[in-house]
């Protein structure tokens, strides 16, 4: 192990307090009084992170805000001739450094998908790039998978450190924080004192146990062709997707869903160009001005979602599945559409497929 720090349960908030002086610290908190859900919020004094279960919404918004200003513009009228109008354009603004504390491996792994699209494509997305660079992830090893989780099925697992800078392992009395790279290393002193050997060993045992845990059945990474073959099987998609209500929950809570829309908002002479989350589950997403829609119903739309994650993406990016198995789309789905099952059954004979 590289650098480590130990924080007791009691010291946790004061450590976060210290960090929050230098950066925005995002922690999981209750969505509201007596609510079951957990969401990520900027740390506020006295608010302790809730680490016992997976959050409902994601820290995705830290790198990819739900609504973000791409441009600000202002029409300036010439005082002499009001028909002469120039436009003042401002784009990228400086963003504060940030840390996401207490996310789970699956939450963080989603950004590997983002990196492919936003950083490694034909064009680099400067907004994402800046945030990516300025944000650290202190990730909690996962010990509470539930019946919707399937991270191991997509090549990850409860102890997957990909994409993280710091690693949090619960041990007796508190947490052991381990740095996974230099960026993380630098922060360790601010988080707690160095861990003892006993603590390190205890953490190692915990980590190994988690690493050996298998979450989810089967392997969902080899369905590129199966999907293509199933593409035109209308009955299959009808049976799998009938119950979908075309809402955007699955995409909004998905760590790998990155689709967005761009719209302008304007008041008098000033306005901004916004980028906001969009969802491929929405009819409007592909609706053209002419009225034509290449994906007019939820069947085509859900098919595209499955295709995107398990076929198109791996086809394009060396087999990388655009799914991290967090299970949120299953857990949060109002009608319990189960993407695992839909993918798995791609390979089954027609007629044997049953949706639940």
């Amino acid at each position: 192990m590289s650098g480590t720090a130990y924080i007791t349960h009691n010291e946790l908030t004061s450590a976060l307090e210290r960090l929050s002086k230098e950066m925005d610290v995002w922690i999981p908190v209750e969505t509201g009084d007596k609510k079951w859900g957990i969401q990520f919020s900027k740390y506020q004094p006295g608010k302790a992170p809730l680490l016992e279960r997976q959050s409902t919404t994601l820290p995705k918004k830290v790198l990819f805000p739900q609504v973000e200003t791409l441009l600000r513009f202002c029409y300036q009228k010439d005082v002499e001739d009001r028909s002469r109008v120039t436009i003042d354009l401002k784009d990228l603004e400086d963003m504060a450094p940030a840390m996401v504390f207490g996310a789970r491996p699956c939450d963080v792994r989603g950004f590997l998908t983002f990196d492919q699209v936003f950083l490694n494509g034909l064009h680099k997305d400067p907004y994402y790039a800046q945030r990516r660079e300025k944000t650290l992830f202190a990730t909690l090893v996962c010990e509470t998978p539930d019946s919707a989780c399937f991270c191991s099925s997509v090549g990850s697992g409860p102890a997957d450190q990909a994409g993280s800078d710091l690693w949090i392992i619960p041990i007796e009395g508190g947490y052991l924080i381990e740095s996974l790279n230099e960026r993380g290393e630098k922060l360790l002193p601010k988080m707690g004192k160095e861990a003892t050997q006993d603590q390190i060993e205890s953490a190692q045992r915990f980590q190994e146990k988690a690493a050996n845990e298998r979450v989810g059945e089967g392997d969902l990474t080899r369905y590129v062709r199966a999907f293509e073959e199933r593409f035109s099987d209308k009955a299959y998609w009808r049976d799998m997707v009938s119950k979908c209500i075309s809402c955007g929950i699955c995409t909004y809570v998905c760590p790998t869903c990155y689709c967005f829309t761009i719209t302008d908002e304007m008041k008098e002479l000033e306005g901004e160009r916004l980028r906001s989350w969009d969802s491929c589950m929405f009819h409007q997403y592909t609706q053209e001005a002419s009225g034509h829609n290449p994906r007019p119903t939820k069947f085509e739309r859900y098919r595209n979602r499955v295709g995107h994650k398990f076929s198109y993406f791996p086809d394009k990016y060396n087999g990388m599945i655009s799914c991290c198995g967090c299970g949120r789309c299953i857990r949060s789905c109002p009608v319990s559409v189960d993407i695992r099952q839909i993918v798995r059954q791609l390979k089954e004979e027609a007629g044997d497929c049953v949706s639940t």
Partner: protein
Amino acid sequence: MGSKTEALAKQFEKVFDDLELVIGWETGFDSLHATPAFIRQPSALGRLIWNPFCSHNLSGYLTKTLNATAQEDAKKIGICVKGCDSRSVVALIQEKFISRERLYIAGIPCRGTVDLRRLMRLKPSLKDVNTVHIEGNELAVETARQTHRFPLQDVLLRKCLQCRYPNPVLYDELIGEPLTPRVTEGQAPPFVDKLEAHSLEQRRVFWERELDRCIRCYACRNACPLCVCQDNCILESRMPKWLSQRSGMSEKFFFHMIHAVHLAGRCTECGECERVCPMEIPVALMKEKLNQVVKELLDYEAGLNPETQPPLLTFDPSETGI
């Protein structure tokens, strides 16, 4: 309850020849989750279940997934409804989106359905449920190891706690005996009252706090059986542009007001909008208040009589006081 589940399957078996498919519930990805089932083969009727986890209102599928209008030579659509769900079916018939003749309705008297998130708060470790049913004022959840009991007050969906229509108002076959409503007519909706006990300022803050969480996933809208615009909802329309993409409080407020106002005099209080909200916002509460207003003012409740016109879509020259 097992007996009702079986009765349900049997009933559909009897009439399946006339049906195109049956919409009901089946067990989902785990034993706590029921999920809507679309059954097209009589042999699969065994998948149907009925228990307090079957909270979904299936009537929305009649317009959004299927097309349950009168069509020549088309077979009927079988559908399972609870009391609240049946009102949505009636409302859809009222507004001529579906046709009674296309439906075969199995009505199920219902003692209430479970709010899984409330249940999880009480017992986060709950899993591997064998059976679940309501016994008196308790929910009995039997797992392999033991039977857990929870007071209904603590685990039912909010709408069920103020249910006035446990029995379907429209059906072809009633599965089980009719029940006595938990709340009787004339009783004010308790949660509306609870909020109204607070000051104007507090109410606004309450909604600010609740709506602040809204992520605009539109699940509340899409789950609503009476939100019939679906693909053409003005929430997303740019021409006309009612709502901006900004994510401020005003947008969130206005979004939910649009939804509520469009449902004034039409909402059947199935509570789907609230059940599906991933952020646990009590969005149905707005509609409950609107329903109370419509009841007081126009003496109307949606989804009771297939023959009537929703009151905001009609008028009466003789009415006074407004």
